[in-house]
């Protein structure tokens, strides 16, 4: 139960953050925005970590070399999304993005990669994911006239 509540909380904040980031991106470039976002994220994590863990935050016993490169994945996230939206427009790009996220999650869960506990791939899972993907498409692609007007408005503004 805690797991699903935290997943919903994270998702809500991701939705908020996307809006805020795009607001920042209206004034400064993509790389400046990325630096700012990851920089403030680091400061917040560091301070909360210090509050929760105290000086234990600095005890890094089982560090593996790849940990220090994991932040680069975040850079890949930003570059891909920025370019995807630039080429396809927000609605289409985000529909593909969300679907891709879910398909890779299912793939890695069922292969048990990255040391994850293997969750066997069943027809039930297939059906569940297809249902969610269908929901994403219905939700995102049937925005109708309003979305098109908004995009036209954006094009005019540019």
């Amino acid at each position, binding site marked *: 139960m*805690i*797991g*699903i509540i*935290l*997943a919903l*909380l*994270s*998702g809500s904040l*991701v*939705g908020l*953050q996307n*809006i805020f*980031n795009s*607001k*920042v991106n209206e004034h*400064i*470039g993509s*790389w400046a925005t990325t630096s*700012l*976002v*990851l920089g*403030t*994220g680091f400061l917040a*994590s560091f301070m909360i970590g210090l509050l929760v863990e105290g000086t234990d935050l600095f005890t890094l016993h*089982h560090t593996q070399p790849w940990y220090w490169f*994991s*932040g680069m*994945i*975040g850079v890949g*996230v930003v570059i*891909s*999304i920025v370019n*995807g939206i*630039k*080429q396809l427009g927000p609605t*289409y790009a985000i529909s593909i*993005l*969300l679907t*891709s*996220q*879910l398909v*890779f*999650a*299912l793939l890695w869960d069922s292969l048990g990669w*990255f*040391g*994850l506990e293997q*969750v066997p791939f069943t027809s039930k899972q297939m*059906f*569940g994911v297809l*249902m*969610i*993907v269908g*929901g994403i498409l*219905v*939700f*995102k692609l049937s*925005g*109708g006239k*309003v979305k098109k007007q908004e995009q036209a408005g954006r094009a005019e503004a540019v």
Partner: protein
Amino acid sequence: MRGILFAIAGGAFITLQSVANARISEGIGSWQAATITQLTGFVTAFIIFMFVRDGKWQDLKQVKPWYAAGGALAAVIIFGNIVAIQQIGVTMAVSGVLIAQLIITFLIDSTGAFGVVKQKMRLPQFIGIGMMIIGVIILGI
């Protein structure tokens, strides 16, 4: 076609990031994982920024501080993600994140909050959210 590949890669990167964070947190703890990945990500982005220089700090003054501080939300996002993956698996966690994300985005769109273009809540959006929730329930049972 390139745009589609970018969007697919973006989704793969996001999920990879969640899984990597969950793995790192098993080794050294959740807050340590959040701190390290944000720090190394910031350093990488900042080095690239130094070459590209696509913004000045002066321009940042035009941004509302509220929006500029949005990155700080990542602390809670990453922590929540890590614990969710450990407790309910990647597929369920990602599904939950997607649903909440779509609902919040749609609430913002339909109320016109934060100065975004206001949109009406329509039947397809209710159907879409309903389908997604049913999908998560199917995954969960």
